[in-house]
């Protein structure tokens, strides 16, 4: 597999799917500047290590992974400078009385990723597991816990 072909595939995917990556980045940081930074950095890293992409068919998944790691990285850095009070505001109780929106914003980054990709980007759980490099069942268990906690009910 030629190196240039991989680089091209990655570049192609980055440009074609920019909106998707931007939306996902924004869901973590809620401001345009940070979201653009995440995607910029992610794109830089993706091109830089495009050689390590094993199969051009999965460039999208591979890029998603990089973008998510970039977002997590930024969140970690930001957390280090956040109020201790804010950081401690993680409750285990049910969110019945809180707006669903707020509840989702309070989820930890991994849970938020699963909710965003599953309910907003309509991805299948096995695709999500692939992107996050976790077992399907780990993703399933997280989603289950979150849906229970937020009392999310999908009517048939």
């Amino acid at each position, binding site marked *: 597999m030629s190196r240039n072909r991989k680089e091209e595939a990655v570049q192609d995917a980055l440009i074609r799917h920019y909106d998707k990556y931007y939306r996902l980045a924004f869901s973590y940081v809620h401001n345009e500047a940070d979201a653009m930074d995440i995607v910029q950095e992610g*794109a*830089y890293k993706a091109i830089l290590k495009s050689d390590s992409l094993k199969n051009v068919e999965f460039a999208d998944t591979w890029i998603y992974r990089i973008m998510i790691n970039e977002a997590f990285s930024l969140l970690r850095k930001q957390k280090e400078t956040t109020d201790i009070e804010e950081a401690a505001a993680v409750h285990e109780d049910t969110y019945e009385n809180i707006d669903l929106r707020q509840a989702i914003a309070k989820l930890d980054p991994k849970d938020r990723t699963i909710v965003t990709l599953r309910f907003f980007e309509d991805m299948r759980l096995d695709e999500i597991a692939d992107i996050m490099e976790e077992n399907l069942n780990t993703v399933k268990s997280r989603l289950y816990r979150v849906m229970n906690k937020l009392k999310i009910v999908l*009517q048939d």
Partner: protein
Amino acid sequence: MKENQQLDNMRQEYLNMNIPENGLNRMKESIDAAKMEKRRMRRRARMRNGWAAVAAALVLMVALPNMNAEIAYAMERIPVLGSFFKVVTFRNYTYEDDSHYANIEVPNVKVEHEGDQTDSTGSAYVEAAEKINLDIESLTDELIRKLKEEVEGKEGGHFGVEVGSEVITDNDRWFTLKLKVLEVMASGYEYNRFYTVDKQTGNVILLKDLFTEDSDYINILTEEIKRQMRDQMSAQEGAVYFLDQGMGPEFEFTRLSENVNFYFDRDGQLTIVFDEYEVGPGTMGTPEFTIPESITDNIMKK
């Protein structure tokens, strides 16, 4: 399937999010910068190549000092004529550091012959044993590879893996070896692989091999399991299965998979075994369902 209205609204907002105009251009600039940097790095690498290969080999050797492979044999003889299976612990991989551990006992199925060594059942046994061993080997190799990746990786994650095995059935008709795997990252995930050999033919069997060609065994078994699940949920406090939960298709057991784990218990009854999180939350562990003979009597091959 009609989704939750709130969620739907949030999804629309998400998809209609404003995308800043210069975002794409900034990313394109990054792409170009990365390409330049890559070319620069390649030039430097070409000069360093001689040393790199040696360094890589050394890193590999030094990074995994505790990996050791022991070959241990368990010698148990069962005095029965004909061919029979014996399971030995072929390898025991152990590893431990601050945030990783492994205890992988790799079983190996051996065939012992007594009497006529060339009968067809005997050679079928050998084939069956080889099939099983190959599958076990590829699974455990994959787990070890995963462990190495985690250990060598720069992420600070934890990873642990345990593999054990047990011969859970060994009678006139069936031989079943159970391989139990526990992978631990943030939380544990347990799953099994059951290997069953029909001693009458010496073949490794799949669930579908048990039933007649035209039987609707998947649906029949599915309905029975659902019935037992509903019974349990109404009778037992805390029993929860992914059934009638209204949580979407991922959390709703609709149809048994052809590759589901199974074995024949002490009383010769067909028992279906699910992996953790396959049909219920983690608290349910790896649930087992025994299928009464009355259900399978007229669809099983004799």
